[in-house]
């Protein structure tokens, strides 16, 4: 009962905001039913990350290979879900020595753990076009809760684009080599493009 009430108030509140703004937004009944469905994550997406270092700067890069699907549920956004896999072997930083270090057993150990997976457990709408995605991230054989913030960037008839950000503590996954010179926090900055499947 309580959750139903919360959803109703969230949706109606968002709808009012949308009407006030006079712009079509994610959660208006029309839009939401428009975008509902199952999507496959496109290779044109970008999965970028940054690990800051003492004294400024840091390591910035992205993962070239990943795959995933997500489902947007129009009647109950909480029943939406996402399933994402990325391949650490595809990490790219522009510096070969950094990449081989990251792929080695010092960090990803991609030879023994070729995938990093994320499976959502709860998706909560936080504003008219944003949502918090909670889930379990598994890397190097260790699973730990992780949260991401998604905001709707663009959508068409069969495509949808989200900007997704999140922070992870790499120590949770046995990857805390180099702390405190390099921050324990990995900041993700992703552009996720979905194609209706």
């Amino acid at each position, binding site marked *: 009962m309580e959750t139903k009430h919360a959803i109703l108030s969230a949706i109606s509140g968002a709808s009012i905001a949308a009407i006030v703004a006079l712009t079509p937004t994610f959660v208006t009944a029309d839009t939401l039913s428009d975008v509902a469905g199952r999507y496959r994550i496109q290779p044109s997406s970008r999965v970028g990350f940054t690990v800051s*270092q*003492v*004294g400024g700067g840091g390591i910035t890069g992205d993962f070239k290979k990943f795959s995933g699907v997500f489902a947007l549920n129009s009647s109950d956004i909480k029943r939406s879900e996402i399933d994402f896999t990325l391949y650490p072997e595809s990490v790219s930083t522009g*510096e070969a020595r950094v990449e081989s*270090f990251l792929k080695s057993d*010092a960090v990803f150990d991609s030879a023994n753990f070729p995938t990093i997976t994320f499976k959502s457990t709860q998706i909560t709408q936080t504003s008219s076009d944003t949502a918090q995605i909670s889930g379990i991230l598994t890397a190097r054989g260790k699973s730990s809760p992780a949260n991401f913030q998604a905001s709707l960037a663009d959508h068409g008839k069969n495509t949808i684009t989200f900007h997704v950000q999140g922070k992870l503590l790499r120590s949770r996954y046995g990857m805390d*080599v180099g702390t405190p*010179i390099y921050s324990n926090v990995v900041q993700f900055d992703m552009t996720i493009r979905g194609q209706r499947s």
Partner: protein
Amino acid sequence: MLRNSKESFGLISILFHWIIGLIFIGQIALGYLMVRVSDFTLQFNLYQWHKSFGFLVLGLSTLRLLWKSANLRPRDPATLSPLERVAAHGAHVILYLSLFVVPLTGWAIASSSPLRIPTFMFDLVVIPSLPIAISDSAEAFWSASHAWLAYLSAAVAMLHILAALHHHFWKRDTILLRMLAPRAVRNGGRHAT
């Protein structure tokens, strides 16, 4: 006791000598090992220790030089031949230079490397980079310079150690002893302060 006299080294000079000497030997061993280990995590950590101790050597050597300039230099023992005198002083000059040049070339490696790994001395102080060119070739140049100068200075340090042992065990003079304790053993008496 703390300061040098005409006859003997003071406690401060003696401590500088042994502390810097031990770190220097440790750094040679660490530098040799760290480039040869295959475990990336261990290697990363060994490099950071090597950098931290390198800056410690540089800092201590700067203080040592200041202390040296504000103190008397004990006179050479009469047992030294003119040739030994020249050789000993030559070795000392090279070792003193090494205490600055070797850490500085190490600093240049960290500063020129495209990896741009910060130097966070003992996880306490961020050491800025030297304003020098950053490239793979610059890093390779400074790495080779650092290694050659380090091993060269290690060879001179080895001669310095062998000479001290030679004086102690064969010539049985006080050269080694006066670097072990503040008072010249053979004098026994008090020094004028």
